[in-house]
């Protein structure tokens, strides 16, 4: 394959899941995985299964909630939704992320290219 696919950090995946749920509303695991792939324009190829560990972590912290429902195609699926605590967490994480990515961007700009 031409382009290297990036390894994603655990925390990053959690952040992406939260952001997805915040923008898209309640969604099932497949939907979340698809959405992340689309947004990343297939740069971030994940084993879609890894999404479930992230969902569990977030549920344990009380940042998302889960309930069984029916999908748009009439299929039984588990839907996840962001909670109030999750939204607050997302806001602070996003700010944090932007600050750090800004720092890293500036840092990388200083490195002379060989």
């Amino acid at each position: 394959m031409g382009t290297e696919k990036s390894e994603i950090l655990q925390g990053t995946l959690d952040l992406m899941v939260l952001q997805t749920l915040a923008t898209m509303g309640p969604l099932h695991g497949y939907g979340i995985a698809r959405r992340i792939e689309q947004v990343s324009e297939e740069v971030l190829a994940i084993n879609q299964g890894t999404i479930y560990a992230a969902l569990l972590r977030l549920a344990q912290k009380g940042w998302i909630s889960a309930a069984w429902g029916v999908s748009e195609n009439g299929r039984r699926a588990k839907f996840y939704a962001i909670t109030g605590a999750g939204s607050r967490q997302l806001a602070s994480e996003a700010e944090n992320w932007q600050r750090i990515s800004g720092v890293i961007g500036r840092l990388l700009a200083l490195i002379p290219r060989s």
Partner: protein
Amino acid sequence: MPTFLRVLASRLHATFAGRRLDDDLDDELRSHLAMLAEENRRRGMDPEEAARAARRRLGQVTRIKEDHRRQRGLYHLEILAQDVRYALRTLSRSPSFALTAVATLGLGIGAATAMYSLVEAVLLRPLPMRDAHRLVFVTGGPRRLAEAEMPLSAADYLDLKAAARSLASLAVFEEGSVSLGGPGGEPEQVQAAFVSADFFAALGVEPALGRSFTAEEDRPHSTPAVVLADRFWRRRFGADPKVLGRTIKLSERNCVVVGVLPPRVAYPGDKVELWRTLQLAPPTRRGGYFLYGVARLAPGVALAGARAELDGIDRRLQQQFPLTNGDFAFRLVPLQQRIVGGARPALLVLSGAVLLILLIACANVASLHLARGLGRRGELTLRAALGAGRARLLRQMLTESTVLALAGGALGVLLAWAELAGLEALAPAAVPRLAEVAVDPSALAWAALLALATGVVFGLAPAWGELGGGRLAGALAERSGRFTAGAERRRLRSALVAAEVALSLVLLVGAGLLLQSFVRLTRVDSGARPEHTLTAHLALPRAKYGDDRATLAFWQRLLERVEALPGVAAAGLGISLPPDQLEVSDIFTVEGAPAPPPGQSPPMANLVFVSPGYFDALGVRLLRGRRFAGADRADAPKVAIVSESLARRFVAAGNPLGKRIRTGGPERPNNPWMEIVGVVGDLRYDGLALPPAPALFQPMGQSLWSEMYLVVRSSSQPAALVPALRRVVSELDAGLPLAAVRTMDETLAASVSEPRFRTLLLGAFSLLALLLATVGVYGLVAYTLAQRTHELGIRVALGASRGRVLRLVLAGGCRLIGVGVAIGLLASLALTRLASSLLFGVAATDPPTFLAAALVLSLVVLLASFVPARRATRLDPAAVLRSE
């Protein structure tokens, strides 16, 4: 709720909801796969291809589930539970191994814990008194005999109390019994201590109820005060707190109850039921030795300092009163040592014995583990080859041995608890402080720790050896059984079993020596014929029988009535009773005998005042002269009967009859001379273990005493006489208790109860050791055989006879036993002398005992190896070779 708590709660919940959550995740993944496949189909894949691509996209489902599980619950706990479940399953597949290991550990831990709990409570724990280590016991004795601890006289006590600066408080007491009449039950004799007013203050003991004594209550002729023991208060007064201030009648004298002691606090002994003020009268002479002292060392004074001060006081009294104190010295001993010192040697020997048992048990468990490890090397290497991590396998082994050790420990606690209850029931009165005994947590912890360590170390050894780097291939090859495996480990195991044999031999020899001593002790002749003899104790209260005439009249009426009872062959009264109820001893002088050299005391004799029938009732032989008669009254010429050894050692050659003898030393020149009218056989009054001391008997009519033992010889069953005796006594005096009613056989048995206790205990320990060693040897031989089945099969196939196979198999066991026995004999030689103070009439290195113990042990363990060896001779070579 903080986030980490929320996570913990969720994980805890998941731990218990595991199965439901698994199903939930399965459903979710299935629906995910279905959606992926649908998308693929929409893109134009055929259904089969679509499903395959969907699975690729999702990733490995088992891995997702495993990750999920790890994230979800308490992962380590679940793995532990899994390990434990697996360990239990594995162990239940080899129940004989598991049961043997658990039983061995349990027996070892149980015995050790029980024994150390006993030792801790009796020997080591401080007495239940304030600053108990500052308390000393005060006695006196001849300066020459540093060991003698005899009571003090009232005069010596008062002089010491006035002079000693190093003793902060000096209290005295005398033990005795009083009869208790009045409400609350039948008249009974109760054990009492008569104590000076400051007794409890000196000990540092506060009554739990009421108060201690006042000085006024200790003054002669005032109303005596009484403090009750907790147990007695519950038994006789139903734990009624209103007992305080009540007047009770003790030996016909009114006393007032002022306090109740806390439970388990009893000095001078567990048997004491009440303490009464002593009311010591000002002494009229220096003699009369009946008081024991307890004192508290003054602040900043060491025991040696106090002893030095007492030496000075001794010297001053020596010059002041050369007649009585010329050879007298005060003695100080730490109170704890005085109370438990007698039980110390036996308890130390017994704890040494349980230590050996614990070692044997550990060796047994270690050897079991080694054997099992050898048998499991196949399983282990296979699992390692299939990819089980070394750490995982080690953890599994560790779990197994820990499960075993914990089960053994649990069994040990139960056994320790039961054994302590048994010990308390079995232990004689001679073991002090029994009331304080309970399972000691620290003893239990140490024993369990030792067992756990043994289990872990030897349980891991096989896994460690097997999984060592590079051994895998070799182990797999060995697994086929055609190599003799683990020679090194077998040597270690043989050494362990030989050590077990040696240790058990030490215990067997010790038990044999104690048993010999005990048998010899019970064969000692007390001087009395014990069969058909009943004894009882009577104490006439001074308040009611004030003068000699009333006392003598009562004793004579009692004897008349008892002798008239049907079935009574003889009846008598005496103040002392063989084998160990000695009341009085005194110095004596034989007329015409040379005076003792200066600085030396005159000879001592047991002084026994008796009725004429005493000798016949006890079955004592009259060797010369006559018995006492009713005519030997106060106004008749004074007479005496002496024992054989007194006559032989102290009366100048010739006929002792007609010679004159006198009690008391130069201090009492007014004691009358008595004519010796008879010689009787020796009687032991100081216990069966000591040679009989000289005895001097005086007729009751000339030397009256208000407390007597009644001795009745019956023509049939002595116990059948008891109701009639009680009736006779209550008809004569309804308020007088008949105490300590026992047959002479019972009295003799009770006098050796302490040696019996330790003999039984050490005997039980040595049997336990023998059992463990037998299990060890059996296991080793059986296991070695199982390892050599192939080789033996070939030998039989090649024509080896049964006898030859048997010899071959037994040879290894015999070598082992021989080495163990040799080491055991040497160890016994070194160790039994530590027990020599417990032996009676047998040397610590008694060759027959050593031989017998070695023989018994060898036979039993040989038998243990013979059983599996016989199985080897029945091997069917064809079957053995086919099984390869």
